[in-house]
């Protein structure tokens, strides 16, 4: 019976049931909350679980179709073929539009269920509202899938073999990159739901900030890791030696990250001091709106061309309506309710509150800069005003300008007391570090290559400034109190991650060397004391490709230190050539080689790179992620604390936030 009906149809059916449940989830608990009807409120949690069950079934059904090569499913036949390895058949599920929507919905259901399970400390009314808001988002996504982008659509007659997944996407880094990114994007829906629920209930107090803080931080951690993985993949796989391209796809994930970073800092102020309440709500709405925008602009094809909308108007119109409903609806609610929200805390101009406010302003400025650079070409194109693209120097310049105040502030902020502080006191604490950072900033680049560049000096100084102030703050805290909260460890790690990231970026941008050249077997090229010796190529046979593999010896001072084996692959199933770079990695430098083309007679064009300290960029991302995870593990989030603002003790010199 099942074989006749087909597992894909069961998957489709499960999706329809999940859709019905999501409608139920988004209405009944809200009505219950309004009427104070316990029975209706109690629907929320089981509905969230049931929704997860059915979306999970649908997801399993699509995965099964990929695994057993069920090419009668259109989506499967478009994104996998018989020779594709199992791992990439499983990851092929989210290789394109329909499947990534399904993954998005599944992750949304996972977050919804997580809120349902880990919210025993929260008032049931609040939980009901939060889950209902998440249910509404789910209604949007499930209906989008069911009405415009059904992943289970059949094709008749079924083809004997499918079209392979783009070979670029057949990489472990990219296989796990979208799920991580989505965990982050969708995770912001929790902060969004808490904010909207609080607006509905008209109760925006510090407790609300305390509830949404761990969720936001963990979502932010996933997003950080997801972006880091994407960057690492681009470096390994694209063969251009770059780690960030200011590509619209990357920017789409970076905007929510910037706003999310602002949000976790603003939430700290709201929780600790009861300030910036309505601002925090606005950020929560903004972070999730940008996540939605990111999902859509990447997956709808609008980036390839705004005219993708014209070829499939149903999807385009749906996306626009959905975005308008979410953004417009939540902003309208905000406008209506924010009046009732008043911030209770008071603070002087020189205080932790001001520092965090500045942090927010700077991060938001950065987000606006990325937004403009990313969307301006799309807008121009949409109105037929010309075809342009915004070059990389724009983004680089903007970020260099934004980084200086942001990183300066990062060093000072944690030393400033809540409410009010004396600038002279903080200056006295930090002046030595400032001198050390500036001195090293001037000396290190000089030692490195004997010349001075302002940008390099500033970058090195900023990284050292951030690292030293963070460690010093940690030391002060460790000396003054017996119990070090995990959240403080988290902040320290995350800020050290920033330092690591900045030093990595500075070195890569200042001291990288790259060279495209023609190499004959036996010839060599020396780059920054490293000698690349090209020995020639040989043919190798992969599971679904054949490759010319180059053999390159790496020598330093005449001694063999490693070998590189870059490949030029031709995927047999689609006759696509692909460059597989080879990298000799190290904490302080990467040596990187990519094959160009065969130039006849055994000679090849090769691209060689020397990338100093590039690992520190991703190390920074990992540290930030770990910092977020540690902060969330803090036990105060697991305790049922009667929190009173007034009872907040006078702040010590360094407090966690």
């Amino acid at each position, binding site marked *: 019976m099942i074989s006749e009906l087909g597992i894909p149809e069961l998957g489709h059916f499960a999706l329809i049931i999940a859709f019905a449940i999501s409608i139920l989830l988004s209405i009944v608990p809200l009505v219950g909350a309004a009427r104070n009807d316990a029975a209706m409120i109690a629907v929320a949690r089981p509905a969230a679980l049931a929704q997860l069950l059915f979306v999970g079934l649908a997801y399993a059904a699509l995965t099964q179709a990929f695994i057993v090569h069920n090419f009668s499913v259109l989506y499967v036949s478009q994104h996998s073929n018989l020779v594709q390895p199992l791992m990439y058949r499983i990851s092929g599920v989210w290789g394109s539009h329909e499947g990534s929507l399904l993954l998005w919905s599944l992750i949304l259901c996972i977050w919804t269920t997580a809120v349902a399970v880990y919210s025993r400390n929260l008032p049931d009314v609040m939980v009901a509202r939060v889950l209902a808001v998440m249910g509404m988002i789910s209604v949007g996504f499930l209906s989008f899938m069911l009405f415009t982008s059904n992943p289970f659509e059949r094709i008749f007659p079924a083809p004997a073999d499918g079209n392979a997944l783009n070979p670029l996407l057949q990489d472990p880094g990219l296989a796990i990159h979208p799920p991580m990114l989505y965990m982050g994007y969708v995770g912001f829906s929790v902060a969004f739901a808490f904010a909207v629920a609080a607006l509905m209930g008209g109760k925006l107090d510090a407790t609300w900030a305390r509830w949404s803080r761990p969720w936001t931080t963990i979502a932010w951690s996933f997003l950080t890791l997801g972006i880091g993985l994407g960057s690492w993949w681009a470096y390994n796989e694209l063969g251009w030696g770059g780690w960030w391209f200011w590509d619209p796809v990357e920017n789409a994930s970076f905007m929510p990250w910037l706003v999310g970073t602002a949000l976790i800092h603003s939430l700290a102020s709201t929780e600790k001091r009861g300030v910036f309440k309505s601002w925090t709500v606005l950020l929560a709405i903004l972070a999730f709106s940008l996540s939605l925008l990111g999902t859509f602009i990447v997956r709808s094809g609008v980036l390839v061309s705004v005219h993708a909308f014209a070829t499939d108007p149903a999807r385009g119109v749906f996306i626009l309506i959905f975005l308008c409903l979410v953004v417009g609806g939540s902003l309208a609610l905000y406008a209506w309710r924010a009046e009732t929200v008043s911030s209770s805390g*008071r603070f002087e101009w020189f205080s932790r509150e001001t520092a965090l406010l500045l942090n927010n302003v700077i991060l938001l400025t950065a987000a606006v800069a990325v937004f403009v650079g990313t969307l*301006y070409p799309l807008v121009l194109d949409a109105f037929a005003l010309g075809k342009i693209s915004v070059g*990389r120097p724009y983004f680089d310049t903007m970020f260099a300008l934004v980084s200086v105040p942001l990183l300066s502030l990062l060093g000072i902020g944690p030393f400033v007391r809540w409410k009010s502080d004396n600038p002279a006191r903080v200056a006295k604490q930090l002046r030595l570090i400032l001198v050390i950072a500036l001195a090293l900033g001037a000396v290190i680049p000089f030692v490195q290559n004997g010349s001075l560049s302002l940008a390099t000096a500033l970058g090195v100084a900023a990284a050292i400034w951030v690292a030293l102030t963070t460690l010093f703050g940690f030391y002060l805290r460790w000396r003054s109190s017996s119990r070090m909260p995990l959240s403080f460890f988290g902040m320290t790690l995350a800020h050290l991650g920033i330092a690591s990231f900045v030093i990595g970026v500075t070195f890569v941008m200042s001291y990288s060397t790259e060279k495209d050249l023609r190499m004959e077997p036996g010839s060599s090229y020396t780059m920054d004391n490293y000698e690349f010796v090209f020995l020639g190529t040989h043919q190798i046979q992969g599971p679904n490709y054949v490759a010319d593999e180059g053999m390159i010896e790496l020598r330093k001072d005449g001694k063999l230190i490693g070998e590189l084996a870059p490949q030029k692959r031709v995927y047999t199933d689609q006759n696509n050539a692909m460059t597989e770079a080879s990298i000799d990695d190290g904490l302080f430098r990467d040596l990187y080689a990519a094959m160009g083309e065969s130039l006849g007679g055994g000679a090849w064009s090769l691209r060689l790179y020397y990338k100093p300290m590039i690992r520190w960029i991703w190390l920074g991302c990992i540290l930030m992620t770990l910092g977020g995870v540690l902060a969330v593990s803090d036990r105060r989030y697991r305790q049922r604390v009667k929190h009173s603002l007034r009872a907040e003790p006078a702040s010590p010199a360094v407090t966690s936030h």
Partner: protein
Amino acid sequence: MSTKRGRRKMLVILVLFGVAVATVLGLSAFEENLLYFYSPTQVKAGEAPKTRAFRVGGLVVKGSVVRASDTLNVQFVLTDNTESMPVSYSGILPDLFREGQGIVAMGTMNVAGQFVASEVLAKHDENYMPPEVAAALKATEDKAKQVGSANTNTL
């Protein structure tokens, strides 16, 4: 500044200040870094900038790719099926660069009036056509149709 009104005022001022700075910096950095797209027809007509970098797209003419034997210099001809223009490039071409395929090149005109590409982009799969190239080709096609129908009218 400790009053609620004062704080709100400060917040508004700070945000406005940030946005203002962003706008000023953004616009100046922006204008310099906008890369306009031209088709070979537009380049032939002299519409493309003489000194600034711009992007040009079209199909790589079959049989036009010439490689130097001892360097990485490559020459090829780009066409939008109306006009064509030579492009020179030094370096490694992307995996999907092929004769007959649509590509986008970024670069400047040299003194001799030849386009020197600093970057050549060919993306995605073999069926993919850069949207700008597709539009340029379509413009040519439409013009051809118009000319065709005008001819039939006169007959």
